[in-house]
């Protein structure tokens, strides 16, 4: 589903990604772990197409198509969803309006008819219930005045609703207590299917207890320095990143 080949990317004048190679097949969940400043978030932004994150060389193929030519919304409509590490506050835009606009934009892209307000509300209610999100959150402006946990749950809510093919989770566990973490992980696990894939970016092993990955990669200084299965995450937890870079 996703094929990253020798990806180099800069932010400003600084090279952050220095040759990433990674292939994710449908049905797989990959976790990328690494110390602070390794380039984890940069990777997620590059995949989502954020301005200012410049790819200097390498290719990214998504479903066989060159991803890097596409604008952020075109990528989203093709099924890429990024759960932000720091969800953005948008004063004045009600969450419900935001969700409905996004939902219908993606349906429209797929040639499906747009849903009306009633139908949409019903759909959202189902999801909010699953994720233990209060309905009044929908009336509030996007992420404004939300606690850290609420923001993250809102990200998962959006993901459940938009049902992406490729889920990118950037430090979704940070700021969540254990109960919230379970709920969020359940949300992700419900979406797991042979057609979907996921890339989970995390600093700690904790989240991987709940979303069990098929592969674990260690990102350090802009490169993947080690890959393995779930046990690699446990090893890292135990020995720390320092031991790994020393090795």
């Amino acid at each position, binding site marked *: 589903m996703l094929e990253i080949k020798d990806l180099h990317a800069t932010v400003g004048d600084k090279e952050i990604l220095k040759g990433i190679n990674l292939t994710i097949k449908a049905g797989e969940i990959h976790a990328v772990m690494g110390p602070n400043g390794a380039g984890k978030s940069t990777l997620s932004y590059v995949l989502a197409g954020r301005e200012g994150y410049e790819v200097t060389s390498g290719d990214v193929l998504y479903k066989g198509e060159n991803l890097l030519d596409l*604008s952020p*919304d075109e990528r*989203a409509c093709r099924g890429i969803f990024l759960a932000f590490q720091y969800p953005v506050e948008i*004063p*004045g*835009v009600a969450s419900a309006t935001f969700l409905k*606009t*996004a939902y219908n934009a*993606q349906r429209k892209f797929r040639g499906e008819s747009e849903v009306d307000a009633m139908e949409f509300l019903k759909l959202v209610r189902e999801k909010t219930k699953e994720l233990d999100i209060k309905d009044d959150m929908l009336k509030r402006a996007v992420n404004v005045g939300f606690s850290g946990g609420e923001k993250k749950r809102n990200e998962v809510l959006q993901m459940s609703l*938009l049902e992406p093919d490729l889920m990118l989770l950037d430090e979704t566990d940070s700021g969540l207590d254990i109960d919230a973490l379970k709920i969020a992980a359940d949300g992700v696990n419900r979406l797991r299917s042979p057609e979907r894939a996921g890339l989970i970016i995390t600093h700690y092993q904790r989240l991987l207890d709940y979303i069990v990955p098929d592969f674990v990669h260690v990102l350090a200084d802009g490169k993947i320095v080690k890959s393995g299965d779930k046990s690699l995450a446990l090893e890292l937890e135990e020995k720390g990143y320092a031991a790994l870079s020393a090795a």
Partner: protein
Amino acid sequence: MKNLTPLAQTYLDRFDAARRSLPGHASPAVTALRESGLARFKALDFPGRKVEEWRFTNLSPLTKGIEAMEAPATSLPVAEFKTPHVMTFINGRFSHANSALGELPKGLTLTSFASELDAGNSTLLESDAEDSRAVVALNTAFMEDGFVLTAAENTTLDTSILIRFVSLDGTADNARHMRNIIRLGKNATVTLLEEHAGADGHAYFANPVTDIALEEGARLNHYKFQAESNTAFHLATTDCEVPAGAHYENFSLSTGARLSRNEITTRITGDKALSSLNGAYLIRGHQHCDTTTITRHLVPENESKQVYKGILDDDAQGVFQGKIQIVPDAQKVSGDQLSRALLLSDRASVAVKPELEIHADDVKCSHGASSGELDEDALFYLQSRGIDGKTARKMLIDAFLADVLDEITDEAVRSFFAAITARWMEEV
């Protein structure tokens, strides 16, 4: 003595001939008032940019004399805002034929200012003699017509009144010195919408002066839609006195005029009084729009609020000057002000001067001002959810305007204004 600006000189030259045909010419009191206005205007002239209050607004395109434009006269457009009470002024004069005052509640009167002047009723303008603002002095000398609204104690108008000032043509010496008077008795409640409009291509100078006095407990919702011709000048001055328990709500939506200024002064003279001044300006091309507010808290325990938002495209220039003044001993006063501007083009610019002048310690005052472009993070976030760039921008602009439109209490006016802003946005 220094030379007057060409336009000021034209007014001085024209006065003698004009006053013989202006309303109230038979009344010595009105004549004396006009003469005093002219004398003050002669001493003041139009303000240049060295006058602090006008440092951001250059009047020279007006004062060097308006160029006549070739544009066909138009007919009166149908009013978009629906209400049973409509008063229409065409080219500066009350048009009975195009007005439908409908059935107004007992105690509420709505008349034309010209008819009051013709009746020698100059007592409405007592406070005028000392005014030191040039445009007001000029208005006093040449005032032509306008509306006079009075409401007796406890009178309540459930619907709203629409006052239309429409210019159907524009020749060089076309000026509209409108004078409006509003007097609300104790606990009276009135909602009023002014519409100032003219077809694009007509050049004229609109100089409305509105004098408002509320009595205790009165409430006035005063809305204004300024959609003058894109070659017109519009310099509006509004004064309002807000005594104990009274509430003055003003919202001005400006989309028109080549150069406009909306200057509002409120004097808060009683406890539990509230002055709420808000507005939005949406400008493009070479438009210049100036909003100037002066809020004076003269006694303790009252409140003022202001929210102004501007959206500027092309080469447009926006100005916001807002002064909150709290005199000594006016304790327990709260004054808040917010002004924000959104620049959509590299050539648009904005100048802001929010000012606090505070002489009492137990007060809560704040002002905030910001300007810049749309938030890039928010745009990306929306796009990352599949919303295309154009829609995302529109959503953010709508959101930017939504909080200020929410300040409008009257629902009908709010949705009318929302429709206008949406239409403006279509052309971005």
